């Protein structure tokens, strides 16, 4: 138990092209989370709206969405740390409650990546990093993670096949997640023979863009017990940042910000990696999941490959990871992703994860990265 609990969770289906507005997309996750509690819109003290603004046509979406959800005149504001926006929303929501300013706070993450054309999307891809010193060379997200993969291969003997095994696992669970965008089985050969995007990463090493929304409702301890029979407590929060330019990084075999954030979260929760029963990690690329195994302490540096080779991160393994299919299968609607990861862990800790349920988990961890290790948020939850 802690001072703040998650009392409601919701998520829209993640899809390739959502046939509605961002308001309607947001409403899908919102309705699901609100329906879990007895809360009325007026009971929500404040709302935090999370997305990556370069995909939004609507300027300042927070007020527009809050009105559509029925959450005005309460305060609302926009929060952005790209792919980790909604996890950062949880950190800020926790602070608003812990400070005594509000009893109940709602975090709504969304992204309609199809809001802009694919040509506009191609243009934005080039601006995903340091626009002064890196973008003029023609960089893209896959290239940066590919450079991490190359460094990891060289230092530790990790192989393309090890990364492909991570995609095979993701597809195993994507098939049983009805909200995932990619629900087909993927064979090892299929991953290894897919088109090269940026050496050594191939098409199947990369997650897909998607449209989607997620919603989390946080409440102070005394309110939480009235609102749900199964409050899930926020035990640890860690957040960190790192240089945007690769020239500022000490090493490319892991993400320093993830290690810093994990240390902070574990210290706050007074526990370590060995205490975690189920985890969601930010697998925007297969190499990102491999580095997460090591950055979080589930494996020693360089030994993440044994976890996947021995299937220890499968549902019945030592530490089940991304058994909802991860970003690789669910898709990655930037602002909604962190909230979706938290939702999965909340369902696991409640024992409500259906076919994805792991056996009696007590402690869950969420690793959510923004950019190429620019931002990291680690959240530890307990039932």
């Amino acid at each position, binding site marked *: 138990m802690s001072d703040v609990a998650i009392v409601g969770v919701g998520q829209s289906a993640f899809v390739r092209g959502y046939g509605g507005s961002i308001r309607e997309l947001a409403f899908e996750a919102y309705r699901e989370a609100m329906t879990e509690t007895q809360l009325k819109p007026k009971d929500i003290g404040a709302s935090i709206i999370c997305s990556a603004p370069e995909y939004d046509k609507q300027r300042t979406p927070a007020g527009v969405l809050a009105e559509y959800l029925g959450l005005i005149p309460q305060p609302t504001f926009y929060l952005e740390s790209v792919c980790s926006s909604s996890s950062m929303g949880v950190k800020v929501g926790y602070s608003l409650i812990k400070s005594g300013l509000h009893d109940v706070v709602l975090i709504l993450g969304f992204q309609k990546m199809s809001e802009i054309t694919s*040509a506009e999307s*191609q*243009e934005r*891809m*080039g*601006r995903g990093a*340091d*626009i*002064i*010193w*890196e*973008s*003029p*060379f*023609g*960089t*893209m997200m*896959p*290239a*940066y993670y*590919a*450079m*991490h*993969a*190359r*460094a990891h291969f*060289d230092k530790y003997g990790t192989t393309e096949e090890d990364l492909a095994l991570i995609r095979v696992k993701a597809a195993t669970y994507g098939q049983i997640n009805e909200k995932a965008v990619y629900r087909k089985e993927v064979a090892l050969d299929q991953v290894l023979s897919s*088109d*090269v*995007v*940026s*050496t*050594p*990463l191939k098409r199947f090493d990369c997650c897909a863009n998607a449209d989607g929304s997620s919603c989390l409702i946080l409440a102070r301890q005394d309110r939480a017990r009235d609102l749900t029979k199964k409050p899930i407590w926020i035990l640890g929060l860690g957040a960190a940042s790192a240089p945007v*330019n*690769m*020239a*500022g*990084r000490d090493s*490319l075999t892991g993400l320093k910000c993830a290690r810093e954030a994990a240390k902070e979260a574990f210290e706050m929760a007074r526990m370590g990696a060995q205490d975690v029963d189920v985890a969601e990690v930010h697998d925007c690329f297969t190499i990102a999941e491999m580095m997460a195994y090591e950055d979080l302490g589930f494996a020693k540096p360089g030994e993440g490959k044994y976890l996947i080779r021995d299937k220890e991160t499968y549902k019945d393994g030592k530490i089940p990871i991304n058994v909802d299919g991860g970003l690789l299968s669910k898709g990655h609607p930037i602002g909604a992703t962190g909230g979706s990861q938290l939702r999965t862990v909340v369902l696991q800790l409640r024992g409500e994860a259906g076919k994805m349920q792991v056996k009696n988990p007590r402690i869950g961890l969420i690793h959510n990265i923004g950019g190429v290790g620019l931002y990291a948020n680690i959240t530890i939850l307990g039932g």
Partner: protein
Amino acid sequence: MGFEKFGTVSFTSQTKVDEFVERLSQGKVSGTKCKKCDAAYFPPRADCCGCLSSDMDWFDVVGTGRLISYSTLSYAPTGFEEDLPYTAALVRFNDDIQVFGRLSKAIKSEDIALGMDLLVSPVKLPCDRISYEFVRP
């Protein structure tokens, strides 16, 4: 020469360190060093976040660096399609200075290996543009 001439596509034209481009045209790839606390920066910065001074000197990245990692792209963002395939790379020089850029196309893919020695050298691009690339010593 303005900063908008840097790289295949430039995304911003204004920075106080636009002398970087002038120095490229003189054959030098340069960073900045704080005159007050000696902190060295690459890419160059106009301001020192260590001591808050804006009194900076230029220094040139010279000598042999070592390839830290690389990746060859098969897809490119808008404006870079004609350059494909090209190889992004990170190279570490002395004094812990690292430089992000591209490998010269003169280096064959089968000859690329982490740890290999590389120099950084200015390169003229079409349409009066300028950049730098990594070349073999």
